[in-house]
């Protein structure tokens, strides 16, 4: 199978146009660290990687913005920002292997989304190459910009089914001098949910509110139901959080970093351990998250301040059945990562809703012959 990694945006656009003109199916990715995500992918005639697009295009720390090519390793990217006391607080899983483009296109974000939002909130511009060989710009290098259509939003979470991201512009946040993490351990779920509710209703502005059920907390050497809350800011601000959130345990420095590292790598670690494992992602209203947690018979990790949760299954049927029952309760969800046997569209994305037709029209506009990452987006597109 042909495999290429163009080193300039122009070459990438030309290569895509040539493959498309020849009617070749294309498997596109960055570091290909998330091959089991989104329904996997059908075999393709060519593989195209963004891994040679690694330039930092523009970085003026005083502007609080940065523009980098999509193949830049996420780890390199965050080190660069940290050296200037700045951050893009997305916390994607697979961070040690992933590229910037892959992190955005897979739209898997981590704990700090409670305060900072997800990729859709942090990306201010994007350039991508289409199968027609066009290089399309959406947004720009300023934090407020409504010129033109925000088509970059479509690429976030598209899993490479629409176009190939060439470069991404982010707005940056200053990294604060101090952070603290407060762990609350509970023997039963209702107390954990009550604690979460009281934090949400108070004036505190924590970065992260993650919930783990006992199956999940056991995987990171904790016990019982665990609510993990992180805050950041000045020393004085963090002291205020210490007063307000006297939890079971307070984490700082290395212990704190290690804890969140394990949370970020919670799913990758499971998938490495269980090549046949399935990860279901569901979205619920914040209030319904407790019911979702109660119904999960397996390790369950939730962004409890957002209503996005992951459940880890060792078998396809278990995952499909739980997702089906979640869908029956009106929650939205997918089998985000599938095991070796994959998952059919009906199992992987049981209730897509009528907007799927509009999504298919969008796919048609970009890729009418379904050449790019065929099978991705849960086999529905």
């Amino acid at each position, binding site marked *: 199978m042909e495999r290429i990694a163009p080193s300039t945006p122009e070459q990438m656009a030309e290569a895509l146009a040539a493959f498309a003109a020849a009617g070749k199916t294309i498997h596109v990715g960055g570091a290909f660290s998330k091959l089991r995500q989104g329904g996997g992918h059908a075999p393709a005639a060519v593989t195209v990687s963004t891994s040679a697009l690694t330039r930092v295009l523009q970085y003026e720390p005083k502007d609080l913005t940065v523009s980098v090519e999509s193949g830049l390793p996420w780890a390199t990217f965050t080190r660069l920002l940290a050296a200037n006391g700045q951050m893009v607080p997305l916390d994607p899983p697979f961070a040690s292997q992933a590229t910037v483009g892959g992190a955005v296109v897979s739209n898997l974000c981590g704990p700090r989304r409670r305060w900072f939002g997800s990729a859709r909130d942090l990306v201010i511009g994007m350039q991508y190459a289409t199968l027609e060989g066009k290089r399309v710009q959406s947004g720009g290098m300023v934090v*407020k910009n409504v010129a033109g259509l925000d088509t970059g939003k479509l690429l976030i*979470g598209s899993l490479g089914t629409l176009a190939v991201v060439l470069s991404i512009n982010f707005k940056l946040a200053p990294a604060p001098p101090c952070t603290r993490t407060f762990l609350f351990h509970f023997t039963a779920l209702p107390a954990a949910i009550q604690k979460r509710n009281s934090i949400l209703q108070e004036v505190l502005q924590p970065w992260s509110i993650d919930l783990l059920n006992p199956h999940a907390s056991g995987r990171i050497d904790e016990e019982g139901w665990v609510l993990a809350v992180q805050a950041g800011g000045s020393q004085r601000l963090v002291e205020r959080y210490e007063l307000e959130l006297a939890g079971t345990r307070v984490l700082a420095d290395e212990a704190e970093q290690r804890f969140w590292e394990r949370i970020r790598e919670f799913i990758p670690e499971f998938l490495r351990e269980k090549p046949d494992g399935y990860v279901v992602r569901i979205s619920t209203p914040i209030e319904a998250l407790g019911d979702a947690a109660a119904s999960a018979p397996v390790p369950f990790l939730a962004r409890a301040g957002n209503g996005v949760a992951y459940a880890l299954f060792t078998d396809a049927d278990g995952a499909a059945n739980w997702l089906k029952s979640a869908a029956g309760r009106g929650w939205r969800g997918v089998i985000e990562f599938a095991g070796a046997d994959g998952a059919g569209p009906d199992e992987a994305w049981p209730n897509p809703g009528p907007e799927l037709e509009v999504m298919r029209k969008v796919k048609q506009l970009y890729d009418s012959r379904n050449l790019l990452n065929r099978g991705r987006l849960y086999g529905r597109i």
Partner: protein
Amino acid sequence: MVPAAAREELERLLGARNYLDRAEDLVLYEYDGGVDKHRPEMVVFPRSTEDVVAIVKITGKHGVPIVGRGAGTGLSGGAIPRAGGITVSFSRMNQILEIDLANERAVVQPGVVNLDITLAVQGDKYFYAPDPSSQRACTIGGNVSENAGGPHTLAYGVTTNHVLGLELVLMDGTVVNTGGMAQDVPGYDLTGLFTGSEGTMAFVTKVIVRLMRQPESVKTLLAIYDAASDCGQTVAEITARAITPVAVEMLDGVMLRMVEEATHAGFPMDAEAVLLIELEGLIEQVEEQVEQIRDVCAACNAREFRVAKSAEERDLLWKGRKNAFGAVGRVSPFYYVQDGVVPRTQIAPTLEFIRGVSAKYGLSISNIFHAGDGNLHPIILFDARKPGDTDRAKAAGDEILNFCISVGGSITGEHGVGMEKMELMGNLFSSDSLDMIQGFKNLFDPECRLNPGKVLPTGRGCMEIRQRPDFVL
């Protein structure tokens, strides 16, 4: 032209009280907050999504152009029916349908006034973050169409960051719901695509917005300068010291004198520039940042630094800021508001350039802007009754926006492209990028009936077919 048959069908659908077609009524719908004008041939007032679907179908059958309108406060001509046809006013779809504090959401109809959402939830200590200056009048439907901003978007983001789902009526009459009460619903982010599409791809008939918890503490600061450059330096230094205010607004001398005369908010009459800075968060954080900013202002030669002592004083300062355009209206019969954006480090050179433009065209230009995020609002004062003045104002505006592009900025931060800046789109975007926008327009509005002649430069899209020669600036 709207054929008689279409009028009759619409009258039957809506009843006599839900449309306007007399010239003296229509004249009220020929303008918005910008400078462009064109009169619709009929204005209809749907009361439900079903009404909107029926309007789309009836007008579709007769090939009549349609344009959505909220409160008409837009500043780029987004609601101007430049090809004639029918204006669809959402002013009677103005209900807050659901407030769900536990889930931090509200579901509203498009005609709900922005500020009314906050007023409905502030008793419970929540608020809706995007706060355009027109928030007492502008509607959520218009905010979604234009992806509206406001002073506090520096910290909280613009409309698209606070909209979780939409109900849309497409041009074939289909009703589609995007997003939802939950985040990260699978598939493409259609909500993000349609937010900011300037009413050119679908009608918005319902919006799910995010509500935020009110902060514990708010402090409003006023820093006063004898030199505008010191003011610009303060903004850069605030960023450099990693201080994170929720709003940093700058008013230059010309502007603040107009504002003070109109509102008596307490702005100094003799200063060259002021910064209006707001801090929000936990008490400790706000107190600390007040002192940090006091230091920055002193280091940057501020001649005076005030902290608003009461909610009344704070409200007065913001009233002055948010009513600035009204204040300009007292001084100049006509004004032209720009909405360029530049990287934060380019604010000072841009202000210098604007001064040059003012001198070159002999037009007074005052500046009021969201300095924290580089979103400038130069206001060009002119008199349309003087021959050539309007053209000079337009040319001066274009020159400023082209400068914004040249330093890596954008032609619009929050007002939208509309019909005002569409010709500049070719300077900002490559032909490939404009093709993509055009592709989406054709996909969702193949007959080009919905708000024709916006966003894309003439020669793209359908203006050649639809545009009538008599539209006026």
